[in-house]
């Protein structure tokens, strides 16, 4: 496995008690595989990504569990070592390309610096590599744009530059947090195609975090559905989309409007996801679940086999 996360627990100590943002999160990603992580705002998708790369905002901290990259534990490395790891072994792409780019440097300089910091090569070779990367991510005429600043690029082109930066040191793991959310649909399609091609060609493991099930359907092999800091279902994209097993996933899939499948009403999950300070006991989804029974109120379900996938739901417990 390229990435293995086991029983990860992230806590935010506050004056009014400790908030548990992630609770017993376990998953793995194989080389060349794209794992989609989907969920609504506050489900803990981004925190999962940040915890893996060691960029949790203090006072947030990993309270339990472990993260392994190519078999080696990385969750308790000192900050300096983690910093070297990011960029070299782990590439990161955030939603807003402007947060990842320095507005005062040309994109060529930023790429060169990244390459020189991580790879043993000279300036000339770094420049050649930077140009090749820009071409690979689909920047037309890279040599002409090498000396341009981030503000001279459109949103879609900036995101391409960020992807080139993330790939600069041939990372083994790529974490993309809502990489297409700020982009128009026609640009989104181009970026999705690019991510897919890169995962396939370079054999990197990709963790794609998004709220958009459509993006997952287009890009990912497997998908993990998150709710209130927990994974409620994980399976192949096809299974989860066509035969969701957890009642939350069923509701989520039904609430997505689809072209050419207009319904008089969309499926509606009443209520809202609980806040971190009010996660109900037992299954976190039980107050909104139409199929709950006594056990759901008191005992928390772990992921268990459900159809062709795995779901954290007592409906699937072997009786």
């Amino acid at each position, binding site marked *: 496995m390229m990435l293995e996360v086991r029983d990860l627990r992230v806590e935010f100590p506050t004056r009014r008690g400790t908030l548990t943002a992630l609770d017993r999160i376990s998953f793995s990603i194989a080389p060349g595989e794209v794992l989609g992580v989907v969920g609504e705002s506050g489900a803990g998708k981004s925190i999962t990504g940040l915890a893996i790369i060691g960029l949790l905002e203090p006072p947030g901290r990993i309270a339990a569990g472990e993260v392994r990259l190519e078999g080696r534990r990385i969750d308790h490395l000192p900050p300096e070592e983690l910093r070297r790891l990011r960029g070299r072994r782990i590439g990161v792409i955030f939603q807003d390309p402007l947060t990842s780019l320095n507005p005062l440097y040309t994109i060529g300089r930023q790429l060169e610096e990244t390459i020189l910091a991580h790879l043993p090569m000279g300036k000339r070779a770094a420049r050649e590599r930077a140009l090749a990367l820009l071409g690979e991510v689909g920047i037309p005429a890279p040599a002409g744009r090498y000396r341009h600043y981030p503000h001279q690029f459109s949103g879609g082109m900036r995101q391409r530059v960020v992807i080139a930066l993330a790939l600069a040191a041939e990372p083994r793991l790529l974490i993309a947090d809502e990489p297409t959310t700020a982009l128009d649909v026609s640009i989104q399609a181009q970026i999705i195609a690019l991510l897919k091609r890169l995962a396939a060609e370079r054999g990197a493991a990709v963790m794609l975090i998004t709220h958009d099930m459509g993006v997952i359907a287009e890009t990912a092999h497997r998908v993990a559905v998150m709710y209130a800091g927990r994974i409620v279902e994980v399976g192949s994209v096809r299974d989860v989309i066509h035969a969701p097993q957890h009642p939350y996933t069923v509701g989520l899939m039904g609430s997505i409007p689809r072209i050419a499948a207009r319904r008089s009403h969309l*499926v509606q999950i009443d209520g809202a996801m609980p806040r971190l300070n009010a996660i109900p006991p037992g299954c976190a989804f039980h107050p909104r679940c139409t199929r709950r029974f006594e056990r759901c109120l008191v005992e928390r379900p772990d992921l268990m086999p459900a159809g062709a996938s795995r779901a954290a739901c007592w409906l699937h417990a072997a009786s």
Partner: protein
Amino acid sequence: MPLLKLEGVSRDFDVSRPWLNRVLEHEPRRMLRAVDQVTLGIDKGETVGLVGESGCGKSTVARLIVGLYAPSEGRIEFSGRRLQMIFQDPYASLNPRWRVQDIVAEPIRFLGTGQKVEELLVQVGLSPDDGEKYPHEFSGGQRQRISIARALAGEPDFLVCDEPTSALDVSVQAQILNLMSDLQRRLGLTYLFISHNLAVVSQVADRVGVMYLGRIVELAPAAQLFSHPRHPYTRMLLDAVPDLGMSGRPRTPVRGEVPNPLAPPAGCTFHPRCPHANERCGREVPAFIDGVACHAVAEGRI
């Protein structure tokens, strides 16, 4: 007679640099045409969707209709009772210092309508006690319900909805879309629904207009537009929508990006990205004929 009629409506914005810069650097004034010759009629009780990518002018159309901008050219005629608008960001469109009951009551006081705040709150799925609270005590979806209650307080027969669910999670979006369609049926409302999300528009709209760089390039009944798109841009947009069904249908890859609206291409503004463009497309603006503005369609080439 449509409830709302736009005839050849255009809107220009002055995006010139400051006067001193223009004088010193000999720069001319620069005008940006955000909406260009839009003609559209909306009948009572229907929902017209307007889709397009950022910067295509769809929000400017909304603001022209409710009178937040005056048209630079053309006419807008409204023969109904009253228009109200619902905005995208339910965080920015509610005054954080007001209690919900005061927010919802403002149109009642101002317009003297006979609506009751408690009834309006119940109508949008909130509890009558919620009137006592402040906006920050509500989630995004509930805030959008408050915006809808406030809009309904003015007893409108026409609602202009500018990306009303774009800031919301999908499950909350479903709640709001269902609410809007229930209200439409119960109160006989007419909607102009603006969104960049084609799937959302396909769920709510009876007719759909597709905008590109300020112009409506195609206008058709929703079922027809989504099953048989005619304009090459509409086809490209539909092909770009992620396919949740994973049908593996063949698709044309998207080419290029929306050009700079300050220097739009001559002729048909879509021609640099269009696989069917010929020499005429680069020269001549296509007329809007029979629901579509495209030379290739008019000439029967596609």
